[in-house]
């Protein structure tokens, strides 16, 4: 229990104005809220990049335009990869809470494969664009495009590295409390990236086709 400052037993009735000890926090008890606040700050990073794209998205400098560059069927495939990886990560979390190590590892592998497919398709798209001369330095539109979509792709890549790390951790230590907490953090990160992607495919790709 929290210790309250008292002026000695003899004067137990003395007024008490403050606590001398912080009350106990279990290890990791505030990690998920802290991670959520990190995600919110990340959200602000993306807001700034979306704002930059919104401002610069029409400045083609007589270069290629969204209609010349974007292939919507490919973007649709990419979007479904990320959405499928979201649901499979959800399954991984469900098996985590049931304490099934093997099933968790299996779903994490499936999730990682979908994530890798997403990054692979995106890199293929970037390579294709750069090969056609649509490089980031070609126009303000392309600078903003590569910065926004590239930052998202980088986040997904970091998420994949984190996922592999956690697979190794779970493989070595099993679903101990620390690993469950880490998996829950990655779950938030992964679903958050899917939320950002909704903004990307709507405003960058679909919106770009409407310009």
């Amino acid at each position, binding site marked *: 229990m929290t210790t309250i400052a008292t002026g000695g037993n003899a004067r137990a009735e003395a007024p008490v104005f403050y606590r001398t000890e912080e009350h106990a926090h279990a290890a990791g008890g505030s990690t998920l809220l802290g991670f959520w606040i990190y995600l919110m700050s990340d959200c602000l990073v993306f807001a700034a990049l979306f704002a930059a794209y919104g401002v610069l998205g029409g400045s083609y400098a007589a270069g290629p335009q969204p209609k010349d560059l974007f292939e919507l069927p490919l973007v649709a495939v990419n979007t479904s990869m990320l*959405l499928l990886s979201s*649901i499979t990560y959800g399954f991984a979390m469900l098996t985590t809470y049931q304490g099934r190590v093997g099933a968790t590892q299996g779903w994490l592998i499936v999730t990682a494969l979908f994530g890798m497919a997403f990054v692979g398709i995106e890199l293929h798209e970037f390579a294709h664009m750069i090969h056609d001369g649509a490089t980031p330095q070609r126009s303000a539109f392309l600078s903003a495009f590569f910065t926004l979509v590239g930052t998202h792709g980088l986040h997904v890549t970091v998420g994949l590295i984190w996922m592999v790390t956690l697979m190794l951790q779970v493989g070595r230590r099993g679903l101990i409390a620390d690993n469950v907490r880490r998996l829950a953090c990655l779950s938030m990160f992964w679903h958050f990236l899917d939320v950002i992607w909704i903004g990307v495919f709507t405003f960058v790709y679909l919106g770009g086709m409407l310009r």
Partner: protein
Amino acid sequence: MSEIVHDKPSAGQRAANAGHGSLRDYLTGFFLSVILTAMPFWLVMSGALNGKIATALAITVFAVAQIVVHMVYFLHMNTRSEGGWSIMAMVFTLILVVIVLVGSLWIIYHLNANMMPGMDMSQMP
């Protein structure tokens, strides 16, 4: 206090358990997301709605709806998680995001309009 906490499932587990969904939640979220993703793609690729403004508005509505679906069914947001602090942080962030987006687009649009070649600033009142 601390002895009691250690006897229970550890803190991480408790905190995580507090806000995790069921299989039904995930499947509902996935089903809704598929519809909310397919619709805007179909609208843009088929040009079903005449007019770009109408299509742009429609896909924006679908995006907002899908973001809410993800928040509720995948991120398990509710007003109770973490004693309400999660949603407080999110509302604060949303306000900042709106200020950043609307403010930037609004101000820069007007700056752009005033900086267009051919604009003779000496004619300004």
